């Protein structure tokens, strides 16, 4: 059998393709490495989900090799298994969108023109995108409607243009502490933004509304309210999904991919033939599959005759920070508001999406504010040390834990700014190390440009001022070059020049007629927001182009 379309990976990058094309009557198969979990399987089992990471592969079976480049050029090699350094996210139908918090921000128009607007930066491969914000805007809107984005549009100086005046779904219920935040922002002359969320506040789109379980990010959604790719798209389309299918090689002739090979759980190999192949296995793994798919026409790996596959890997730069609110400084009523579980703290700031420093214009970023995750075990573990940094034990520790957990609450912030692409941050394949399938593992070459830290620290300083104004204590932040494994992009950047990019502006490989890549790897720069909304939107955009192509062929 020959399918019209074979999609490799069922997350936010692959599912819009499967949804649009199968619903238009095309024969679509989706190959997913992980299992399928339904709402009934998703419980808030902290031990299983957060302590034992049941949704990701075991590192002894599947790992990455990480080569970290220090600023002085020193390289250090880490075996992911040995150092428990995992770059896996959600290995399941719907991918890591099952486990996201769903903080949804659009890119801004200037994110598409980073080089033109802010100029080149030495040591960084900054480029403009081959499309403009206007090209993606209709698809951001489509995601709001089809996947479901709730919130309230907040006008501010860097707000992106919208084709609709409001979100299709009203805001989720909020914790009263958001009012303290809004007041602090008013004092500081900042625009407090009600963070849009890919979470339905009430039943819609054939899904239930949010149950305010207090355990959203890192956990699968038991109601279907979260706009994960499985609940929002794959359950509502006719695509055939083959689970526990690890695609290890693509075959091609000189111009077309002809088939995909995958292993099932018993290591039996199977083959899928299709007219069009769409790769969306997550940025690192998509690059790895292409690099491992060598043949007489593509000696360096599929679509890689120009040696661009894997290059310009990016993450989200920035870091986190926090402040603590103690009962001692609050009235009984304020204490009650502070400790109310379940309801969200949906606030963010984009006042420094662009800023000036010493006469120079800088691209800044986004700061999301949220309560510390409700997982109790890490919250308790963070209390183990005294003020001198010495580990504690005994009754004194018991008292410290009890007081901290029951009479205070931590408000955290997350800084998102551009991780500048460079020659030193890329994906390769290890020549010797193999996974449990006998397939060479990916090598992640890490490098963070010093500019990223500089911008991140500027943003964190501003966030700290807001916490201070709110009356928080123990304010701290940590901006680092550590790459967040759940915010990875690039490696198959799109562009108009086939010499410096892997994909054309429609995310089709320059070197092949029927290979598309629609996970975050298409992004040449990442913007300063979490990626998921843009991945969804771009995949809908590519689906639209594919529909036009397939319909023409039918005619």
């Amino acid at each position, binding site marked *: 059998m020959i399918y019209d379309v074979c999609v490799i990976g069922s997350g936010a990058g692959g599912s819009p393709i499967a949804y649009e094309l199968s619903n238009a009557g095309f024969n679509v198969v989706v190959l997913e490495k992980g299992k399928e979990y339904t709402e009934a399987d998703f*419980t*808030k*089992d902290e031990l299983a989900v957060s302590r*034992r990471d*049941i949704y990701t592969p075991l590192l002894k079976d599947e790992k990455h090799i990480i080569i970290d480049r220090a600023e002085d050029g020193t390289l250090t090699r880490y075996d992911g298994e040995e150092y*428990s350094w995992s770059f896996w996210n959600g290995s399941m139908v719907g991918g890591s969108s099952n486990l996201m918090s769903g903080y949804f921000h659009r890119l801004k128009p200037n994110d598409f023109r980073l080089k033109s607007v802010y100029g080149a930066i030495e040591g960084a491969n900054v480029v403009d995108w081959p499309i403009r914000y206007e090209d993606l805007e209709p698809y951001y809107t489509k995601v709001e409607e089809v996947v479901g984005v709730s919130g309230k549009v907040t006008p501010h100086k860097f707000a992106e243009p919208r084709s609709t005046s409001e979100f299709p779904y009203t805001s989720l219920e909020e914790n009263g502490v958001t009012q303290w935040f809004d007041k602090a922002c008013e004092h500081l002359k900042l625009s407090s933004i009600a963070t849009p969320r890919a979470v339905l506040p009430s039943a819609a789109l054939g899904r239930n509304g949010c149950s305010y*379980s207090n355990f959203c990010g890192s956990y699968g959604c038991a109601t279907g309210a979260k706009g994960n790719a499985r609940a929002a798209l794959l359950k509502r389309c006719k695509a055939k999904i083959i689970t526990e299918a690890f695609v290890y090689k693509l075959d091609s002739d000189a111009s077309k991919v002809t088939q995909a090979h995958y292993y099932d759980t018993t290591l039996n190999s199977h083959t899928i033939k299709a007219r069009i192949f769409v790769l969306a296995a997550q940025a690192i793994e998509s690059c790895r599959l292409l690099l491992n798919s060598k043949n007489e026409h593509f000696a360096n790996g599929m679509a890689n005759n120009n040696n661009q596959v894997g290059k310009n890997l990016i993450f989200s730069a920035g870091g986190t920070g926090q402040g603590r609110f103690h009962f001692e400084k609050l009235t009984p009523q304020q204490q009650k508001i502070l400790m109310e579980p379940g309801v969200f703290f949906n606030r963010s700031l984009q006042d420094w999406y662009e800023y000036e420093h010493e006469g120079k214009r800088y691209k800044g970023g986004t700061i999301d504010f949220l309560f510390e995750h409700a997982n109790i075990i890490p919250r308790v*573990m963070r209390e183990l040390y005294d003020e001198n940094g010495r580990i504690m*034990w005994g009754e004194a520790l*018991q008292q410290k834990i009890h007081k901290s957990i029951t009479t205070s609450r931590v408000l955290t912030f997350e800084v998102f700014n551009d991780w500048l692409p460079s020659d030193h941050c890329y994906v390769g394949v290890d020549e010797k190390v193999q996974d449990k399938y006998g397939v060479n593992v990916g090598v992640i070459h890490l490098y963070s440009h010093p500019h990223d830290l500089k911008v991140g620290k500027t943003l964190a300083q501003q966030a700290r001022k807001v916490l201070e104004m709110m009356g928080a204590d123990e304010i701290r932040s940590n901006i680092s070059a550590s790459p967040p494994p759940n915010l990875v992009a690039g490696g198959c950047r799109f562009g108009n020049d086939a010499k410096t990019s892997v994909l054309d502006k429609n995310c089709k490989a320059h070197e092949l007629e029927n290979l598309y890549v629609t996970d975050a790897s298409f992004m040449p720069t990442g913007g300063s927001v979490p990626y998921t909304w843009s991945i969804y939107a771009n995949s809908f955009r590519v689906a639209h182009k594919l529909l036009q192509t397939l319909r023409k062929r039918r005619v």
Partner: protein
Amino acid sequence: MFLQSRRHFFQKGFVGGAVLVFCSGRLFGAVSTMQTIQVLQEDLFGNTTNAPTPQEVRAQSYLAMILQHSRVSQKQKEFIRNGIQWLNEEALEMFHKSYVALAKQQREAVLQSVTDSRWGESFVHAIFAYLFEAMLGDPIYGINTDESGWKWLQHHPGLPRPKKAVL
């Protein structure tokens, strides 16, 4: 139940047996790993009427069980076993007795000494991590008896809670 179905482990499991302990380069003898863990957990968490005890939340059994799990790395398993050995060797160096044979004040002095070292601090940190997993994980795993850990910290677990043990 997760714990009850694996009782046989106590006889032959990873930390269910004994470690050989040396003092000043000479073999002292075998020390029970489980006895060491039981006493260590009580020393670390303390025993007050305000909070559940490690024994009440079955922290010792939990540690033995979780160290059998495929999602706990071999490196971590070996580290815990080595830590028990090193803790006892420190006790022998300081007081010429195994850790469990020491008086409370002497054990306190051993803990002060080992946590001055990097391995000692990491070891204590790891023991705490599994102890709090037992105290604050879902009772479906045969731990956190009567939700006593959650009650102590007024913690509301997320819903839905697990209906079966998946570890």
